[in-house]
């Protein structure tokens, strides 16, 4: 492992993005625009918007980074560049951390913009403030990224990789406590949602909304998210095979 190779990889991923301004625009602007739409969907019921908005701010980086990473990694696998890197003096962890670093930056940029609009303009208030919220958003992006990286090993084409969004992310969206508090769900689904990462993202955002301190539950949620990141990274590294 070497920091030089990790940073070179992060820089390379960001350069690839820079040559693709439309993707940057979509990543940065779409969440903000959706928040604005949501605000006027609820229109007069601003209490409901106030309640939902922070959770959704946590979900965006998870979903976006999941898709972006699974496509980016799939391309790396199919274009032969992964095979080439594996014949070079490159540790798998350099590659994974490089991707992580680059996409965490993107997740923070996305969170900054969507957060600024939601808190500054759309009038949502969170007790925890911007730093708490961005921490949760960045970690949520990392969880999505590492799961996307892992899941890309099971996609043979970009069509399949895109379908992983409804297959992997939507069930979590339904069960994470966004629509209905988890306590009201059928017992079986509650158990399932206990082992789903998005549950902890949404729970952390609820904590950030309600409390100004780093509550015990918030810290626990952050640790669980970090554990998901490490677990998915290890599984992802196992899918980057040097030999067949």
């Amino acid at each position, binding site marked *: 492992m070497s920091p*030089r*190779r990790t940073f*070179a*990889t992060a*820089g*390379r991923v960001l*350069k*690839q993005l820079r*040559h*693709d301004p439309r993707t940057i625009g979509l990543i940065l602007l779409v969440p903000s625009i959706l928040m604005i739409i949501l605000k006027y969907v609820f229109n007069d019921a601003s209490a409901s918007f106030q309640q939902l908005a922070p959770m959704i701010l946590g979900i965006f980086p998870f979903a976006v980074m999941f898709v972006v990473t699974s496509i980016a990694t799939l391309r790396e696998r199919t*274009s*032969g*560049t992964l*095979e*080439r*890197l*594996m*014949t*070079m*003096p*490159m540790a798998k962890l350099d590659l994974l951390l490089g991707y992580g670093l680059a996409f965490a930056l993107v997740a923070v940029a996305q969170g900054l913009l969507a957060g600024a609009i939601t808190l500054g303009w759309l009038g949502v208030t969170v007790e925890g403030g911007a730093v708490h919220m961005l921490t949760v958003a960045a970690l949520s992006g990392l969880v999505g990224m590492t799961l996307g990286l892992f899941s890309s090993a099971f996609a043979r084409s970009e069509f399949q990789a895109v379908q992983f969004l409804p297959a992997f992310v939507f069930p979590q969206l339904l069960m994470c406590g966004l629509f209905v508090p988890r306590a009201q769900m059928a017992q079986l689904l509650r158990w399932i949602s206990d082992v789903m990462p998005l549950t902890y993202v949404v729970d952390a955002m609820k904590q950030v909304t309600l409390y100004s301190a780093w509550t015990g539950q918030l810290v626990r949620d952050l640790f669980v998210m970090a554990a998901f990141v490490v677990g998915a990274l290890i599984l992802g590294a196992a899918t980057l095979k*040097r*030999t*067949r």
Partner: protein
Amino acid sequence: MKNAVFIDHLSVTREKTGILHDISLSVDQGLVVGLLGPSGAGKTTLMQAIMGLVRPASGHVTVLGETAGSKALRPQIGYVTQSPSVYLDLTVRENLRYFGAIAGTSTAREDRVARDVHLNEHAGQLVASLSGGQRARVSLAVALLGHPRLLVLDEPTVGLDPVLRQELWQQFHDLADGGVTLIISSHVMDEASRCDSLILLRDGRLLATGSPAELTRGTRTRNIEDAFLKLVETTK
């Protein structure tokens, strides 16, 4: 250590069907070695075995004195796959800079290899905007970056214009004169005469090895294409 590559009774199978059967050969250092055979003969698989990208079902591959695929080999070998393994959404220079950072080379070296493959004028262009032959040369330039002692090139001259092809072969020989061993695959038999030594492969089996002159003399034929046909006949 005189052998760049030593292959001892190598067999490779995939999904239970054999791709390479009981191949034994050795490649001397500092030679341009042609790996010839029709498509589907197992040329790419043999190259992957040398690069340590496929695990042998049986047998052993030794590269520069180490077991193929060992970590110590990574800075010493370069591999160019058939499809250009570079980032299409980066410029030529950005590709070289990234792979250079991984291989640990200087920017002067990056400029040098870009000049060597005649791409310095296109250095600022996105690889996606280049022609197929130009993309192949970017891929070759990346493989040259780290001064490899062994270069494995899978059909590097396909689709190139004759002038450039001539120049590339000249470069291959210049590299070999400097002690680099090159293994170059081709399904075009007329490239055989440009090689110091040949490996003929068919249906995953080794047909023959030797210099072009040895092979034509041994089969009493006038060119490698005829020698190949004769060898197929006699091994039936």
